[in-house]
């Protein structure tokens, strides 16, 4: 008796293993039929996807903006620079020779000479006090050589020691390590990056919650169907599958919509940014999303959708038992 029972129960378990080919085909069928179910309620599907899309578009868009800002300020973001203010008596020729010599030194990446006239010009543009400086009549500014250490000499320590060696040069009145702007800019982008991280976490969570909630309500909604399916011998895996695929589709559609919204947002922001760039005599243009970022957005969104439905299914499917 006992052995017969065991044989029977082994038989029951064996029936669950399927040929991989059949398994794949069934999954494909479920994926398509769950897609069909979503398509039959287009309004609702669109709404859920829209909410997910909007939620994901925000951090994605802001991240893109931050990247743009960093691109705009690429030169600031580089290595520290050392400005050498030369004695006012130094002639343009002397200055040029010094710059050439410096360019050959070990540890120095690039050298830029700003002659006295150019210095005034740049200073005016930079400070916005153009007319005031013009009113001074005589140019009070010295020539400046901007030295950029190579990457391996850009650490604070190496830069400091280079600074002190450059300071001893005869023509140099004052040598200054120019870290202030970099620091300020880093403080600002730090805030932005932190805010975007907080945002992305919150909104990623929100997307999860949306999917969990949608799938949960859908499970409740299809209560009768689940109950009857269990009644006629549907396994949990069989019942679970369409919900998991629904979550996956929601995530995918949401991600695509997010991408679309980011493209749209960039389009909307471009005119005022161009206007702003115009004020700075710049031809800066916002750059769009690149291919890896697109893949990360879509992939992440799909995973969030799948994860959300997994959570919902785990929590709520076992609550429904036929009676």
């Amino acid at each position, binding site marked *: 008796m006992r052995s*017969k029972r065991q044989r*029977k*129960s082994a038989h029951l378990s064996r029936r669950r293993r399927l040929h991989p080919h059949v398994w794949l085909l069934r999954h494909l069928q479920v994926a398509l039929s769950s897609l069909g179910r979503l398509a039959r309620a287009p309004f609702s599907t669109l709404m859920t996807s829209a909410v997910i899309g909007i939620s994901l578009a925000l951090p994605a868009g802001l991240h893109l903006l931050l990247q743009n800002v960093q691109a705009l300020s690429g030169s600031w973001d580089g290595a520290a620079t050392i400005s050498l203010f030369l004695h006012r008596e130094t002639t343009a020729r002397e200055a040029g020779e010094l710059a050439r010599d410096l360019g050959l030194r070990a540890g120095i990446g690039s050298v830029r000479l700003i002659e006295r006239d150019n210095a005034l010009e740049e200073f005016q543009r930079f400070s916005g006090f153009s007319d005031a400086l013009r009113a001074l009549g005589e140019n009070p500014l010295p020539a400046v050589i901007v030295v950029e250490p190579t990457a391996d000499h850009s650490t604070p320590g190496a830069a400091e020691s280079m600074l002190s060696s450059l300071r001893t040069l005869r023509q140099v009145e004052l040598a200054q390590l120019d870290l202030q702007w970099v620091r300020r800019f880093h403080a600002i982008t730090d805030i932005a990056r932190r805010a975007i991280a907080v945002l992305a976490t919150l909104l990623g969570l929100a997307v999860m919650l949306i999917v969990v909630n949608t799938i949960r309500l859908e499970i409740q909604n299809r209560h*009768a169907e689940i109950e009857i399916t269990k*009644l*006629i*011998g*549907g*396994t949990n895996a069989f019942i679970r599958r369409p919900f998991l695929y629904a979550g996956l589709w929601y995530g995918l559609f949401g991600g695509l919509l997010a991408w679309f919204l980011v493209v749209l947002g960039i389009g909307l922001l471009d005119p005022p940014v161009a206007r702003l760039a115009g004020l700075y005599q710049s031809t800066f243009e916002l750059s769009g999303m690149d291919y890896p970022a697109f893949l990360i957005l879509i992939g992440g969104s799909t995973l969030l959708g799948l994860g959300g439905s997994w959570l919902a299914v785990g929590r709520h499917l076992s609550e429904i038992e036929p009676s």
Partner: protein
Amino acid sequence: MIFFDNVTKSYPGGHRGLSDIDLHIEPAEMVFLTGHSGAGKSTLLKLIGLLERSTRGQVRVGGRNLTRLKKRQIPFHRREVGMIFQDHRLLHDRTVFDNVAMPLVVAGVGHSETSRRVRAALDKVSLLGKEKAYPVTLSGGEQQRVGIARAVVSKPPVVLADEPTGNLDPDLSREIMGLFDQFNQVGVTLLIATHDLDLISTLNKRVLTLDKGRLAQDRPAIAC
């Protein structure tokens, strides 16, 4: 085929649905189950279909000890037990065809095979014309027959029916009972709960009578 070994079922709250039931149903037997309302007929059927678990005692079906069956094996047990309900339990957003096909889809039967067997089952209950109809557009009797088709489409060795003729007129009831008899002829074990004592009396089958959760009477079929 079906063994009850001193089975008691208490519902939460202490109410006893069944008390100390001992029962043995042979393979290919057709048995009626009667008793007053609340006697425990549905409870007994639910124990066989594992919709409820016994509080005490053992239930065995086809050699499987249901008391020990693991949760994930329940679906496979249910595939071998066709169930027919008082309230039909059809899905109202699916056609008659899709409703009847469900047990085959769940079991992973191929497309053309499913189609063939669903049509055969619908033909047996004379509903081949209503294949594409939705359950709400059917009368009570027609819905009942869809439920019967669904229960037998996968040819389970055991079929349970809970008042399958409660909503049918006498002619149709007789017809359905004839249908059950046909299934029985081909070796299906049937257990049918019903109030229709007149109908039972016309059929020479074993009749179990429950009274307040106890097996009050077990009248065997008179051998012809």
